[in-house]
């Protein structure tokens, strides 16, 4: 289908983005702000003070019922039984052959009620996949995409700001709480994020989202777009589905073995176990450019492998990225060459994360 042939969806904050001077672009079927004043400025605001991202394009699937835990244990790679009553957990959704269908956060709302946040581009597929696996489990799956707007408030000042707007204590990291925020009732406040900074994510009924957005901006939050979200997550080496994770790659080679607990018997666990035991041909590694230029997604690594994400790091002032490289080149410090549009450019494999906060 030609770009623009479909109608793009808009979040409840569309008018706010236009008013704030956002550049709106199509992203996974949505019309989303890629930047307001500039990627670098927004990036630095999140690292130094506080930024707010509209991530309402992300999907939500609710799993409820007596068999909820057993079902999620079957489809998600992590040990779901370890999620506290108010907890949050990262995992991947795998095919039988271990290929990664999505990476997701699951929040436990009640003992037998969970909310799983999907990537916008994968939401329909995830939901269909989960429904197809649900037979035999005493669960109900609900598509909650339309029921939540989602704001990520991130940065060293994020908690202080949200704290002034909320009627109770904010959740710790990887915990959740339901609070009234800026007059919006029943906001699911989650101690999670995608920037490497402290902060919270807010799941809000769509009609209340504009008031929360306004209050955050009034309190000093800088609107930040998907452009800054990408540079921020890449500096701390968080995966982006569609770039660093794809169906044809497994979690072990992607460096996500830590969120796979094969003993739970999740779909794909046999393949993941085999990959963990015998090793993989390629491994996802972070790198920095040691020569001028910026490697981009799709640039080949000389000698095998491929760049999956690449950008200019606003904090480091040099080109950074992630690439799949042959396993023998995965050690931090290993020099690699990347074919950047026909020119061999020098880079070096580094350890995660590429950016560490000065404390």
């Amino acid at each position: 289908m030609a770009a623009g042939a479909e109608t793009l969806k808009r979040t409840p904050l569309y008018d706010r983005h236009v008013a704030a001077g956002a550049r709106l672009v199509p992203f996974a079927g949505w019309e989303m702000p890629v930047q307001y004043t500039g990627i670098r400025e927004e990036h630095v605001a999140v690292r130094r003070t506080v930024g707010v991202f509209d991530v309402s394009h992300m999907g939500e699937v609710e799993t409820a019922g007596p068999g909820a835990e057993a079902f999620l244990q079957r489809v998600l790679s992590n040990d779901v039984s370890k999620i506290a009553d108010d907890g949050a957990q990262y995992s991947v959704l795998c095919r039988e052959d271990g290929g990664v269908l999505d990476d997701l956060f699951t929040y436990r709302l009640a003992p037998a009620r969970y909310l799983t946040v999907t990537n916008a581009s994968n939401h329909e597929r995830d939901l269909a996949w989960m429904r197809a696996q649900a037979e035999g489990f005493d669960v109900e799956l609900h598509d909650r995409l339309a029921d939540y707007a989602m704001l990520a408030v991130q940065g060293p000042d994020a908690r202080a700001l949200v704290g002034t707007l909320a009627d109770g204590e904010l959740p710790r990291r990887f915990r959740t709480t339901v609070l009234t925020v800026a007059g919006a009732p029943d906001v699911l406040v989650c101690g999670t994020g995608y920037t490497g900074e402290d902060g919270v994510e807010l799941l809000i009924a769509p009609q209340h989202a504009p008031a929360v957005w306004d209050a955050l901006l009034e309190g000093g939050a800088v609107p930040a777009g998907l452009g800054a979200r990408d540079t921020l997550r890449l500096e701390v080496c968080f995966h982006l589905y569609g770039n660093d994770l794809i169906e044809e790659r497994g979690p072990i080679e992607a460096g996500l073995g830590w969120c796979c607990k094969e003993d739970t018997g999740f779909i794909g666990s046999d393949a993941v176990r085999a990959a963990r035991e015998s090793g993989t041909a390629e491994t996802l590694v972070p790198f920095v450019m040691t020569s001028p230029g910026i490697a981009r997604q799709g640039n080949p690594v000389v000698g095998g492998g491929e760049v999956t994400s690449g950008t200019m790091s606003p904090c480091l002032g040099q080109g950074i990225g992630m690439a799949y490289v042959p396993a023998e080149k995965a050690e931090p410090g290993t020099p690699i060459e990347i074919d950047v549009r026909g020119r061999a450019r020098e880079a070096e494999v580094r350890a995660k994360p590429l950016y560490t906060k000065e404390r």
Partner: protein
Amino acid sequence: MADASYPDDVKYHPEHDWARIDGDVATFGITWYAQDQLGEVVFVEPPEVGKSISKDEPYAEIESVKAVSDVVAPLSGEIVEVNALLTDSPEKINEDPYGDGWLVRVRLSDVSEVDDLLDRETYEGSLS
């Protein structure tokens, strides 16, 4: 970033380049619209002095935070100078696209090609 501007003292190429003609030498750069579309420029890969370039063909690369873009030559000729300021200050392309943000100076091989370029009014009209 500077406000939108399209000066009268340059000629425009539909691929969002400008050329300021001085006899058989021209200075090239990208237009305000082009730098606005790119976003913050973070790296410029200039061509080498002495290289021949052809009208409508890419001759340089500009990297923004988001992506890399080819820059198309508005006219044909030989590169006689590249803007060394951009090595350390690529953001000049955003701040002053028709001044300090110029890219190259070119000795033109066919001055008659200038007739193919657009004046300000025609170029600006093409943007809406």
